[in-house]
């Protein structure tokens, strides 16, 4: 199964092939899990959702038409489930899309970056971005998605993907500047 392309695995899963499902899970579960942890900031909740995402893949494999890559398709399902979970959180009285845009102040860069090196500072600032910004940064830099693929996962136009990432990076610069690190951009 190791050399079988993702799309072929999904075709096998559509025919009820459990081994293909195991192969797809082995290949993608960690990436999907990390996407969910970064979005929810809740490892236990992310584990439950990983199983839900892959059970959806199991049940909906027959409807996969290959218009998007399998990674893009699975991350779209994961995003949808994560946003639904965020909506169900009792303290998330805000509209989830609005809540997503609120940066997490728990990890205030000013207070934690004084002694950190530049790489560590950057990591902390990446972790402190709003959920909306974390998503686009992760999809581009960690999940290696193209502009069009990110647009599919986030269900927004390609132009919006570019400007959203630009603003996320600008926000990173602001966090770093607040911590005394000027990277001279933008």
């Amino acid at each position, binding site marked *: 199964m190791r050399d079988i392309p993702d799309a072929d695995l999904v075709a096998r899963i559509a025919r009820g092939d459990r081994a293909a499902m195991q192969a797809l899970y082995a290949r993608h579960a*960690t990436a999907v899990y990390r996407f969910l942890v970064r979005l929810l900031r809740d490892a236990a909740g992310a*584990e439950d959702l990983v*199983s839900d995402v892959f059970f959806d893949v199991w049940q909906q494999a027959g409807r996969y038409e290959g218009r998007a890559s399998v990674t893009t398709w699975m991350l779209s399902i994961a995003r949808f489930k994560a946003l639904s979970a965020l909506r169900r959180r009792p303290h998330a009285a805000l509209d989830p899309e609005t809540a997503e845009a609120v940066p997490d102040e728990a990890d205030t860069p000013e207070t934690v970056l004084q002694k950190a090196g530049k790489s560590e500072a*950057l990591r902390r600032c*990446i972790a402190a971005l709003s959920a909306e910004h974390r998503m686009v940064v992760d999809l*581009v830099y960690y999940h290696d998605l193209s502009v069009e693929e990110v647009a599919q996962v986030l269900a927004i136009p390609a132009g919006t993907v570019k400007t959203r990432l630009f603003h996320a990076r600008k926000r990173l610069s602001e966090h770093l500047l607040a911590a005394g690190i000027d990277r001279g951009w933008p």
Partner: protein
Amino acid sequence: MPSTPKTPPEPDDLDLILPWRTTGRLDPADSARIEAALARDPDLARRLAIAEAERDETIAVNEAIGAPSRAARDALFARIDADLAAQAGRSPRGWLARLGEALSGLSPPALAGLGLAACLVILGQAGLLAGALLQERGGPAYETASHGGGGAAGAGSHALVAFAPGASAAQIAEALRETGAVIVDGPLPGGVFRIRLATGRLDPAAVEAALDKLRARPGLVQLALPEAVPAR
């Protein structure tokens, strides 16, 4: 002089796509544009280095997260097996029809090989049965066929459970957690899982109480039975 409204500066078009240069995911036209600009603008190379640092640290942040646990995987495949069992139950064509279909796809030499293998299995089973009979005459001890004499893997109190197809992974994981049970084997035929309720021997009432907790959860299990304790 009339005052003009102040608007934030528009981002440079190249800066908008530079991050994708760091992952090699630009389309060919944008890629050519970036390479040409990099050749004539040294400051763009500096901005590219900034994006590369972001990429490296984003990867580091994600890789620090780890991977989902074995329990999450087990819960998922328990649901999948329950779903497969439910599908088999709904299917008008039973396993015999599917077996016939599979056999009809085999070539004559493959069928001959399969027949030979079946003969060997039957002969092997006959030998085992004869051995078992002779052993039985030698002494009164016997064991259950399924789980042998209860070594390390067989120690504790066990039950057989078939999860409902609609049960979510979260429901299964939470129920197992609350009952203190773990999946130790499966799926067995019919999508049944063997779970360990305790590492020690529980009395039948305690086993029933643990199983009642599982049964009480709506839509979680189709079947939950205590496993027969091997006779000693």
